[in-house]
């Protein structure tokens, strides 16, 4: 059972297993790539905990949408999640302005209440529909190959779950590229964004909508709790390797591939759940970055050196 090599070969031994595992690996790559891209902007905006809060706060929206429609298809669930997210925002704003509570306390209170409400709703059995709480909370990426076949105009086109995630992943990549400047400037300097005539508030809301979409599309695979790991790990790991945002964004792709492959094999080897194994792989990759990364790693702290060098304030030429 604990034989590493054997378990790795075992995962790819037969044709059926290759197909089965490839679907899981692709799903993992698309989930962590979408989460990572959104996560880069969430992290540079110093909103990492807001991402956590949002992923919890939208749970009642997900459950209600499921109870109403009887399916976990991305569209209705996303709408439900966005409504719950807006509800959260309104509650926080109300608590913050009408009571002496500070913002952090208001956020902590609201999101945990919404999360609790979501869990309570999960245990409800309305009619015939029933949701497995473990699947929502922890995700089950291993079940990806069991998703129904997508049939378009009578032609079978492959795994429905992969198609859904693929579309969300594509949408995330396209929005990142198209709105890159808006996201960059509003994250770095809101007053500059304003003086360039950018709609600062709309961009903020747009990013929140994208965040909700990615969480909704990913939670079946990695769960509403571990989705945050997939968001935070890529940007914080590569921030030790790269100094510019485009490089950090690009590094999300190789990191996603590593997380997905590493997670699958770790799960095979030790008989772990795959989603948690992906997060563990992410942490294992994070550690050497944090320790030896050229950009502020603990054992290679070039940052303080170059500040001393620069503090002479004398230009080279």
């Amino acid at each position, binding site marked *: 059972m604990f034989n590493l090599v054997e378990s790795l070969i075992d995962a790819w031994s037969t044709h059926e297993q290759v197909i089965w595992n490839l679907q899981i690996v692709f799903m993992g790559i698309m989930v962590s790539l979408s989460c990572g891209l959104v996560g880069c902007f969430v992290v*540079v905006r*110093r909103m990492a905990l807001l991402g956590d809060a949002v992923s919890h706060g939208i749970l009642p929206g997900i459950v209600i949408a499921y109870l109403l429609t009887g399916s976990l298809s991305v569209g209705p669930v996303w709408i439900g999640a966005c409504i719950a997210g807006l509800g959260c925002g309104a509650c926080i704003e109300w608590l913050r302005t009408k009571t002496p509570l500070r913002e952090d306390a208001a956020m902590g209170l609201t999101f945990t209440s919404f999360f609790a409400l979501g869990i309570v709703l999960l245990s409800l059995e309305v009619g015939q529909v029933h949701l497995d709480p473990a699947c929502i909370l922890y995700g089950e990426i291993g079940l990806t190959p069991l998703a129904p076949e997508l049939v378009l105009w009578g032609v079978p086109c492959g795994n429905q779950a992969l198609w859904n995630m693929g579309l969300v992943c594509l949408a995330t990549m396209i929005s990142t590229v*198209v709105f890159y*400047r*808006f996201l*960059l*400037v509003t*994250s*770095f*300097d*809101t*007053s*500059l964004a*304003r*003086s*360039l*005539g950018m709609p600062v508030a709309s961009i903020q809301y747009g990013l929140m909508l994208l965040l909700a979409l990615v969480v909704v599309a990913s939670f079946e695979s990695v769960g509403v709790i571990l989705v945050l790991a997939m968001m935070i790990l890529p940007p914080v790991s590569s*921030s030790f390797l*790269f*100094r*510019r*945002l485009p*490089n*950090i964004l690009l590094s999300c792709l190789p990191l996603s591939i590593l997380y997905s492959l590493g997670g699958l094999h770790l799960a095979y080897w030790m008989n772990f759940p795959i989603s948690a194994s992906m997060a563990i792989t992410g942490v294992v990759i994070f550690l050497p970055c944090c320790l030896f990364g050229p*950009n502020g790693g603990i054992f290679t702290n*070039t*940052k303080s050196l*170059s*500040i001393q060098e*620069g*503090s*002479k*304030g*004398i*230009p*080279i*030429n």
Partner: protein
Amino acid sequence: MKATLPKPLEIHDLTVAYQKKPVLYGIDMEVEAGSLVGIIGPNGAGKSTLIKAVMGIIKPVDGYVKIFGETTRKAITRVGYVPQRASVDWDFPVSAMDVVLMGRFSHAGWFRRISKRDRIFAAECLEQMNMLPYANRQIGNLSGGQQQRVFLARALAQQSDLYLMDEPFEGVDAITEKAIVDLLKSLRNQGKTLLVVHHDLSTAKEYFDQLALLNLRLVAFGETQDVFTHDLLQRTYGGKLTVLSEIGSRQVEHKQPPSAVL
């Protein structure tokens, strides 16, 4: 329709409050084109708040701001803003060049690629602030003075007509201080209008053509030699002035601009 060009900045009866506590009270100001105005006053006088209200970041309780005769919303793209150093996230993953290029975004078009012309122009702006050798450095790896020069290069790249700067001299070295003064004067000579929040009374007289003395209200606004008087400064700074005015008069006696340290 007026025959004259609209003024770069008109502030009328501007009142700003944080949670019902007024921090700016009935400010009236009209700034002519090509002015280099220093905004001085004690801590908590509302200097930064005034800049933020002009930028439209803070909504006033009363009064209005007009920029080139238009609302802030409409004319905001003609305004360049240099933020206070403390308000910038210096760990943000951008290089000096990236920061300056941001100033070109509204010229380059939102979705088009940054053209070679924009890149060359941004490099020229960095060069003007003597920062071109550091173009690829992450901004956190620059000294305080260098960071400030990057932001001034960005302001240059924006090619704005009205500049608002919040404490650009805060925590910079002597070379940068000199570079900023030269830049301010050269922009003024190009007919740009500059409002600069400044906290150092000993240099205020030397750096600015006009001064706005602020302490919740606008105590005085006019040519530097007319308003930089003991009486008006006393009214602006209250009891704190004794020490400050001594520093000020000592500075005048020695006639020692900070660049002379070199």
